[in-house]
């Protein structure tokens, strides 16, 4: 069964360092999402890609976070510099394509990367 792959699964870093997370969506899925989940809360969307284009990054802290999906397949999320408050689970999800109205494409989630900033 096809799955969303993420690496690393765990990352410990010191504040002010740079970190990067990688996501490989399910083959053929045009839409890719990065979520941040703080312990005890639900996931919050950081950025959404349609192919290689960003369609929503309204919640991405752009002073320190960046995301790219250069070839419209896998994606990298970077934090530089990391801060203590960035400690969280970073989840990647993918879906076939976003469609308007009431039509929906299920989002499939990867296992996540748990980031700890010391």
């Amino acid at each position, binding site marked *: 069964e096809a799955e969303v792959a993420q690496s690393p699964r765990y990352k410990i870093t010191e504040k002010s360092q740079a970190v990067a997370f990688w996501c490989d969506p399910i083959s053929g899925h045009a839409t890719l999402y990065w979520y941040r989940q703080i312990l005890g809360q*639900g996931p919050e969307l950081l950025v959404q890609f349609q192919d290689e284009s960003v369609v*929503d990054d309204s*919640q991405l802290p752009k002073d320190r976070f960046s995301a790219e999906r250069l070839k419209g397949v896998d994606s990298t999320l970077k934090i530089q510099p990391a801060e203590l408050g960035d400690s969280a*689970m970073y989840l990647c999800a993918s879906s076939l394509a976003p469609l308007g109205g009431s039509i*929906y*494409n*299920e*989002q499939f989630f990867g296992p996540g990367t748990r980031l700890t900033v010391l």
Partner: protein
Amino acid sequence: SQQGEEDPQALSIQEGENATMNCSYKTSINNLQWYRQNSGRGLVHLILIRSNEREKHSGRLRVTLDTSKKSSSLLITASRAADTASYFCASLSGGYNKLIFGAGTRLAVHP
């Protein structure tokens, strides 16, 4: 915060009992979904209910939706220890497939 609210925040029951979780959301929706998350893992999609539906069943799961109250409930019948997890509702609105998650309910089912 964009997130909806869920209650209770935590629920502890015995195997065989039913578990009910409630969710409220803030904006008009296309559909509402429920996800399960085992400790430290990714989310698994459980069930989706469209805005024009009022009730939906899937196995031991029953979901209701009241769009006038902007609320939904998830009922798990005959719970099992393996149902122990966090459960999140997520509302979908707009044209870009954007999900807004609630804060979740932590369910513990004791053997």
